[in-house]
């Protein structure tokens, strides 16, 4: 290896050690295009979605104050929490699945940390310029120009962060109303707090912490290697082809001169947002953003060498073997995913849009009426989870001759509302002895398949 050739100038080293900051170099290329696209689409979704309306209300709203989640046409209640849990498990499994197949795609292109960092770096480039300009600016003493550039960067960052915090809160409380409240300077304390909290987290994570979050704080970065095997897509430097590395003139036949394809231009290191050298082999600091592939390809093009000295590949194919895409690990993840997604969809489709809670009156066991009947009192909570108003027929059974009193033939519940209904049930004293199991049934008048049966108890005369 001819690496020592390049470690000569030490005069700059001390400066960098104290700065100890990574200045990722800008690099055009196919993967840069992909990453820009991913950033624009994902951030675009994040900032636009809360403004979309559906049926006169916000399309996606996790209405915490009202304890209801709106997902386009769907309304979810706290009772639907298992769906959310299942959804999170599916998300985690998909992450495992894609990691096994294609490595750290998530880290490189979809993780909020990556995506927001990318956006912050754009703002940095607009205000402070290219990598070398930024390094020079940081080293330069304070001047009007430096103040202006740094000031506009901070202005952009802070404005963007505050907007991010505002948007985040807009997922949990009506964003349009929130916007009006802000214009009126009339924002609730907690709303303001969470907005500033999230904005500050964005500012700190995307502006300053950046790769340190991935290196030191991200659990996924540490355990993703457990999902890796020899057939997983990784970004790798082709050592056999590249070494021995070294600078050379384009006219020289480097093979004859005993050199590999790597010209040791260090561009792959300069573009790396986590500051590693991909030529040192697979490292867990690598977030697979593929910037080094773009950098190396551009150099290979200029040198007239074939592309792919740094490329997406697998350990198998590096070793000259065939890569297997379908392997037990992939099957296991895929099967689990299919089963869970199938289960979620089925249970969502067959979900009965009504919930009945029966709460027995705690204050009295039973009451004897003058006409010889025994009476029990309940509160029924009828939740209409659909968005349309519905009317329901209530009935009770379990004790011969049991009757339901206090409600009409049918009860109407507006869409997405809870109706609290005090009811009395009565049975003849000859039939009512001890504690008896009864059932309440609620049936939608327009659709007999929407029926819910709920168990409760009827207390009769005690011996």
């Amino acid at each position, binding site marked *: 290896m001819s*690496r020592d050739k*390049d*470690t*000569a*100038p*030490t005069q*700059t*080293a001390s400066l*960098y*050690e104290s700065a*100890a*900051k*990574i200045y990722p170099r800008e690099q055009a290329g196919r993967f840069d295009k992909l990453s820009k696209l991913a950033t624009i689409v994902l951030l675009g979704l994040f900032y636009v979605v809360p403004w979309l309306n559906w049926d006169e209300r916000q399309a996606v709203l996790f209405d*915490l*104050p009202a*304890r209801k989640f709106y997902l386009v046409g769907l309304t979810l209640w*706290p009772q639907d*929490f298992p769906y*959310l849990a299942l959804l999170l498990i599916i998300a985690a499994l998909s992450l495992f699945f894609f990691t096994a197949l294609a490595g750290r795609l998530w880290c490189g292109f979809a993780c909020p940390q990556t995506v927001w960092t990318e956006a912050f770096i754009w703002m940095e480039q607009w205000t402070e310029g290219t990598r070398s300009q930024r390094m020079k600016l940081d080293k330069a003493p304070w001047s009007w120009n430096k103040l202006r550039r740094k000031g506009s960067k901070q202005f952009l960052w802070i404005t963007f962060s505050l907007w991010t915090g505002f948007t985040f809160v807009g997922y949990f409380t009506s964003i349009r109303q929130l916007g009006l409240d802000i214009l009126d300077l009339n924002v*609730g304390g*907690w*709303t303001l*707090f*969470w907005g500033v909290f999230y904005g500050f987290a964005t500012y700190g994570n995307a502006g300053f912490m950046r*790769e*340190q979050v991935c290196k*030191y*704080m991200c*659990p996924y970065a540490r355990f993703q290697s457990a999902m890796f095997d020899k057939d997983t897509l990784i970004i790798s430097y082709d050592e056999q082809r590249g070494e021995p590395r070294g600078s050379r003139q384009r006219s020289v036949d480097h093979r004859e001169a005993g050199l590999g394809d790597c010209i040791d231009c*260090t561009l792959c*290191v*300069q573009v790396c947002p986590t*500051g*590693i*050298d991909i030529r040192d082999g697979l490292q867990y600091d690598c977030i697979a953003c593929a910037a080094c592939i773009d950098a190396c390809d551009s150099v290979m093009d200029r040198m007239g060498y074939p592309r792919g000295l740094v490329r997406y590949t697998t350990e198998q194919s590096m070793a000259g073997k065939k890569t297997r895409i379908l392997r037990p690990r992939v099957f296991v993840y895929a099967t689990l995913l299919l089963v869970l997604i199938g289960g979620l969809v089925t249970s969502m489709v067959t979900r009965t849009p009504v919930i009945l809670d029966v709460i027995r009156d705690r204050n009295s066991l039973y009451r004897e009426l003058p006409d010889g009947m025994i009476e029990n009192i309940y509160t029924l909570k009828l939740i209409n989870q659909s968005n349309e108003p519905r009317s329901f027929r209530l009935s009770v059974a379990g004790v011969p001759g049991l009757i339901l009193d206090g409600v009409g033939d049918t009860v109407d519940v507006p869409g997405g509302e809870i109706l609290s209904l005090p009811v009395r049930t009565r049975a003849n004293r000859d039939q009512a002895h001890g504690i008896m199991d009864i059932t309440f049934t609620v049936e939608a008048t327009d659709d007999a398949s929407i029926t819910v049966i709920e168990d409760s108890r009827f207390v009769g005369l005690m011996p």
Partner: protein
Amino acid sequence: MIQEEYRGARQWSRNRQAVATVVWISFLSAAIATMLFFAAFDPVELAAMFDIDIGRQGGYAVGFFFFWLLSGLSSGLTAWLIRTAPKRDPQER
């Protein structure tokens, strides 16, 4: 030269690493705990049991910070005990 420029760049001290990890991971745990807890319980009803008048938003926030404190305490103590444990005899496994 490039090597020197980046090698060792922005390496965190062990203390900083411990603090940041504890704060962050307990934050994640608290977020999950808050979600699970408040899916089952309505903060307004909970507060009413103790005769406290607190809005839902306030209830969520108090719950979240309580969980954060609790899981932070747990993570923090764990990290601290591991880091201050007596040195192991290198002979023994």
